[in-house]
């Protein structure tokens, strides 16, 4: 396992190099000039072309792309991710302040989606084609279809404006987390319920489930231990990816709920062509995604003893 872990971590290096090149190149291909934005922010007026040129020189943007990239990499490996064009603060500090908030939000939404999505899917599979199944599938369809910002407004209207139960925006405690987490989780709950239903329905038709029922086991035990457990492999795979996507989808939720996380800050940075922040953001997200995938791979042998790290390695090599 140790060797497997080291190999996977070694893969991270080319991934990060590739991501950094992509983030560096794509950021600069986007139309616009961060120098203009920095002047407008610091002076409160639209700059002249001459002022923009001077600011580009100050920011080092008038140097060749290769020089800029290597300079940034050189500083980044020493932990200096530069100064944000948007806020003027060190990028490392900005990410350190915002990433935990986004992780907190995504984790809460992830937990909610597991707690609601899996039981709902299981229930629908156990009562397939009954009204319960139809109800769950309808709710899932609606949950997957409605836009997140609209759900957010509805939740604020219901629970903040009318019921005064939860605060409408901001951070501060568990109460502030509820509405954004529910909004973010809704899409995932819907998908997880449908995925669980499909996976469990497939295993319910297999021989080992029929054998378990023939042995006279209680239906609940058959469902959970014999149908759900084999279905966990695709669920865990999807969940790993889902957590990463939750981080990405958090942008809309963070904006509406004024949740000052990494997603919201990244959108501001993209709009302002804040190259240092965009590049650092891409690297952080790459590390998070790779880390999640690694965690999922490490979970497989615990769910299904037939899988091992050597087989995981060979399948990874084939892939």
């Amino acid at each position, binding site marked *: 396992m140790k060797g497997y872990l080291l190999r996977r971590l070694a893969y991270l290096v080319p991934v990060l190099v590739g991501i950094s090149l992509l983030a560096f190149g794509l950021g600069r291909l986007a139309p616009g000039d961060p120098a203009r934005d920095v002047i407008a922010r610091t002076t*409160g007026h639209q700059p002249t072309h001459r002022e923009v040129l001077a600011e580009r020189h100050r920011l080092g943007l008038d140097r060749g792309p290769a020089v800029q990239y290597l300079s940034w990499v050189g500083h980044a490996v020493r932990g200096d991710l530069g100064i944000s064009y948007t806020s*003027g603060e060190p990028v490392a500090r900005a990410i350190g302040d915002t990433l935990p908030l986004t992780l907190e939000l995504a984790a809460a939404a992830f937990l909610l989606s597991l707690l609601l999505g899996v039981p709902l899917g299981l229930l629908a599979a156990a009562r397939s084609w009954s009204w319960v199944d139809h109800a769950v599938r309808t709710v899932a369809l609606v949950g997957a279809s409605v836009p997140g910002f609209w759900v957010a407004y509805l939740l604020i209207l219901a629970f903040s404006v009318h019921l005064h139960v939860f605060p409408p925006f901001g951070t501060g405690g568990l109460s502030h987390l509820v509405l954004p987490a529910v909004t973010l989780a809704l899409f995932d709950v819907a998908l997880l319920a449908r995925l669980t239903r499909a996976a469990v329905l497939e295993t319910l038709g297999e021989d080992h489930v029929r054998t378990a029922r023939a042995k006279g086991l209680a239906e609940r035990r058959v469902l959970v231990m014999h149908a759900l457990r084999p279905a966990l492999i695709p669920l865990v795979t999807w969940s790993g990816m889902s957590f990463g996507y939750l981080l990405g989808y958090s942008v809309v939720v963070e904006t509406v709920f004024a949740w000052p996380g990494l997603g919201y800050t990244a959108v501001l940075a993209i709009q302002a062509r804040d190259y240092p922040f965009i590049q650092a953001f891409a690297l952080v997200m790459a590390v998070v995604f790779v880390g999640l995938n690694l965690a999922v791979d490490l979970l497989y042998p615990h769910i299904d003893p037939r899988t091992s790290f050597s087989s995981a390695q060979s399948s990874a090599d084939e892939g």
Partner: protein
Amino acid sequence: MAASRRFRPVVLILLAATVAVAPSASGARAAAGAQTLVVASTADGYYENPKLPSIGKYPTNANIFETLVRMTPNYAVVPDLATRWQFIPPNTWRFHLRRGVRFQNGARFDANAVKYTMGLLAASGSGAYIGIDKKAAIRSIDPYTVDITPSFPNRRLLEQLVHPENSIVAPGSTPNHPVGTGPFKFVSYRRNREIVVQRWDRYWGPKPRLQRITFKFVPDANARALALESGAVEAAFDIPRESAATVASHRGLRIARSPVGAYEALYFDIRGASGFDLGQDAAIRQAVELGIDRSVIVKDVWRGNASVIQTMIPPSILGPYAGLVHGFAYNPGQAGRILDEDGWKLGGDGIRVKNGRRLSLTLVVGFPNADIHGAMPEAVQAMLRQVGIDLKIVKAPDENTYSSTLSAGQGDLFAEVGNQNDANPCFLPDLLFYFKGTSHGDYGYRFGPGGAFDQVIESKCRTGVSEAAAKQGAAQAMRILVDEQRIVVPVAGVFRIYGLSTKVKGFQPNPSQTNQSWLTVWLAK
């Protein structure tokens, strides 16, 4: 029945959890004191400038700082930290400073503080625009008299100094601990969350009645309106115009509209290259003006929270000179006749054609963002089609893309919503339309007529000493842009909309949000 019994504990647990995590808002507010105001502000736009403390200053003005002179809601310049001033030819402004003023750290406000602040403005580059750079001369005549000589002839300095960016900063003030002379002193700041200020008890002027103000940064406009309706805040900036009526109808809430301080306008690129060169045709520019029914846009797009204006400059700045700009009225028939005479004949699809070229214009929308313009582009598109002009709409995803498109000249018309944040009548025409010395990427190059317009800017705006001369110059400049050259199509003068709890008293809405004062505000029981 059995199923409902099974679920009952789960429901009870969920209810208990809900109650446990729900905040006791009233309790928290009561503990903080009665005169505690929470404001839902727009997005956090503070820039952490190590050379010039700016947190609490711009764009969200937390009233920590003050300027030498300030601007009233009607754009008049009145004393603030300077009690009087005079212009000393050829290019010096002498300010007589207010005595007995203390910074919030206890230090005395005097000419040295003004010198210190001007030094920061010069070092940071923020003052270059108004001539406060390393070549500017700042001299203390005595502890309460200071002379400011900008680096270039700048007769508009007085009106420019009202901008909060030019606030007087206490020596030793840092970005993380801003110190000024304002009625409220800094307590805390958390990026993208809030800035908190509290009453400065040794304030030189009338004492503020509010004990504490918390500005919460809520970037989404609808969320700000909902926060106000929920009671989480007592005031909110920039309520969406489509929500204003709903907020006003909510019990315990009201809407405060400022005088016109912002504008929506279309600018013609008059130096566009091939493919975007129709703006060079004066007949087309005039036809577009006459083909747009601005009263419909004010009523339906801006939901009545705007007015039809003839200039981009807020009418209250121009005062009696506003009448110099005649503007235009909706007249699609005349627009059609002008195009006919210019050789643009109606084609089979209802769009005019001349020498095989269709009369098709590209409108670029994106400043400060495309959303703020609402359905204006589509409304203009439908109106211009009635006179045989095809309008292609390009909505830029962000301001940077818009600026880039403008610099590259990839449009015939550009739509902007802008603000007037200082008292300089010439601010907008000088900044956006002065042609001399501009490059391809500048506004002046794209939209500036040059010639007589530049002469007015130079002779009245830049060198005219009196405020009246500048107002007259600004009006003459706008007359050239709107009436004569028809480069600018003013669409609407826009009010700023503040949402308030009815408990909030003494609030005087400022058309420039960044100049909003909270000194007179208090909360009724």
